[in-house]
């Protein structure tokens, strides 16, 4: 076909609203749209960790929620749980626990992880019951849709969608090309 497709761009840049690891001054920003129950995201999780280790202060990483809740029945509440933990300063710990336990993301499991992280459980449960972070999840989801996120995981490297693979080598190559 003669159609030339431009790679989609991230429509909502990384800001203070995002969950971010790495310095704001890093020359490369990697954004992931992910789903805690998606096996491909689970596979990408350790790769992202390795990439962060290798890149050090050259990389800033941000994670946004894109739960496909009609396929993954626990994904939405898991994203809410990560936000509820984030409200208590433990977003990344909950993020890691959920990716490490993708087949155990039921309500009891989530409360168990909150307990492991020593969170205020009453507050955590209230946040989940009241869907306190529904607005934020919708923002993340729609920003993904408008940026060309068509499935998970989808990565953006310095604002451009990364259409290559997300094995360590390919991802590192894409990130290093920005240095």
């Amino acid at each position, binding site marked *: 076909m003669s159609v030339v497709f431009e790679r989609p761009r991230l429509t909502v840049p990384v800001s203070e609203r995002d969950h971010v690891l790495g310095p704001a001054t890093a020359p490369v920003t990697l954004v992931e749209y992910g789903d805690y129950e998606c096996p491909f995201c689970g596979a990408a999780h350790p790769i992202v960790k390795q990439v962060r280790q290798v890149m050090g202060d050259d990389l800033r990483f941000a994670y946004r929620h894109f739960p496909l809740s009609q396929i993954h029945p626990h994904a939405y509440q898991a994203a809410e749980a990560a936000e509820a933990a984030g409200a208590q300063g433990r977003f990344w710990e909950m993020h890691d626990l959920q990716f490490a336990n993708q087949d155990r993301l039921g309500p009891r499991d989530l409360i168990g992880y909150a307990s492991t992280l020593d969170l205020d459980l009453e507050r955590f449960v209230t946040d989940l019951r009241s869907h306190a972070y529904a607005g934020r999840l919708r923002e993340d989801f729609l920003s993904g*849709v408008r940026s*060309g996120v068509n499935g998970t995981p989808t990565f953006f490297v310095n604002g451009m969608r990364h259409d290559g693979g997300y094995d360590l080598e390919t991802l590192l190559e894409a990130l290093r090309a920005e240095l």
Partner: protein
Amino acid sequence: MVSDLEMSEPTDERNDALRAGTPAPAFELKSTPDESVRLDDFIGRRLIIAFYPADWSPVCTDQMALYNEILPEFQRLGAALVGISIDHAWCHVAFARSRNLHFPLLADFHPKGEVAQAYGVYDDEIGMSERALFVIDEEGVIGWSHIAPIGVNPGADGILAALESMAAAPVPA
């Protein structure tokens, strides 16, 4: 920023898809073995038609799953959604159930691909429809159309932009 007008311009010379401003061809297709859906059922509402090659194929599955998640947003913008492929209604039922889809999949099965042909998006070489999107307005006129390469999930951005740019969004009941 590409304007909506430019977005609706087909860029592929092989593209025979009906363009904006054309009345949408009428259809009546099975959504299940004993239920049918007609274009006329949607007059007064906006309708998104997603033609796709085949149930169960990886890209189609991702695309339909994505639209399923975005359905509330489509509805907020006054639009209903149907998917159309050449699969039989029984196949659609199984596919929709397996993916928990909340919108109808219509069987362009017999005569095969007739509706896709009417919309100019049937690929005779492969015997399936192309991956094509249409947004039809409240009066049954095509407001936007787009053909994606067969292996590329076109996402929903173009649909949302088209719905937003169409004048006088109806207030959802």
